């Protein structure tokens, strides 16, 4: 397990992406476009974790954890924000509807869902952990 802990600030998301792509490249047999998918999914989860801290002025932290199974990579993104209710997220109008242009947000979670093989949300009033799973080949070396 490898852990990266960053301040809940936008400028650190690029470091998280580097962390994920470096580990994915060196440790597992995984195609470049799958690494891009994982990188984007983790980046989206981190952006949400950082957003969740944007109201508080305390020294908030986001923790990204990398773990490996025989056939999978698991990246968990944890924050201490207020949590949210997945069931009540607003639905977008279909993309063909001109109204669609009123939605500049809400693209993150749908992206995450389609980029990785499994997603799990654990969320409560004291924080959220999003776990992203990507299936992959065996360990290198």
């Amino acid at each position, binding site marked *: 397990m490898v852990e990266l802990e960053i301040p809940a600030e936008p400028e650190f998301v690029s470091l998280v992406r580097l962390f994920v792509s470096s580990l994915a490249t060196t440790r597992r047999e995984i195609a470049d476009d799958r690494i891009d998918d994982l990188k*984007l999914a983790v980046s989206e989860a981190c952006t949400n974790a*950082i957003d969740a801290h944007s109201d508080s002025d305390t020294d908030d932290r986001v923790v990204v954890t990398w773990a490996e199974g025989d056939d999978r990579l698991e990246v968990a993104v944890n924050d201490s924000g207020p949590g949210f209710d997945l069931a009540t997220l607003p639905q977008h109008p279909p993309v063909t509807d001109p109204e669609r242009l009123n939605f500049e947000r809400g*693209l993150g979670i749908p992206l995450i869902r389609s980029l990785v093989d499994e997603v799990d949300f654990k969320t409560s009033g004291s924080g959220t952990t999003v776990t992203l799973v990507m299936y992959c080949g065996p360990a290198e070396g």
Partner: protein
Amino acid sequence: MLAVKGEVDVYTAPRLRERLVELVTEGKRKIVVDLEGVDFLDSTGLGVLVGGLKRLRSNDGEMTLVSTQSRILKVFEITGLTKVFSIHDSVEAATAG
């Protein structure tokens, strides 16, 4: 024409938003955003582009995008935004369109 380079994410997207707002304020009505130099684009970046398109259309303008990179196009496809934007292979094609 606006050529975007590097990573467009939650940290850098605000700068892109500012540039787009500036261009519209200057009176530009046809904006070509060249994404060929972009290494990474996330939902915040998509949101900024959607916001720019909306602003332009409400001023009778239009925004077209240039991208041939599969990892960038993929993000538009997954989110269904290929139906909202017209995306071209080259700046020439985008300008002609």
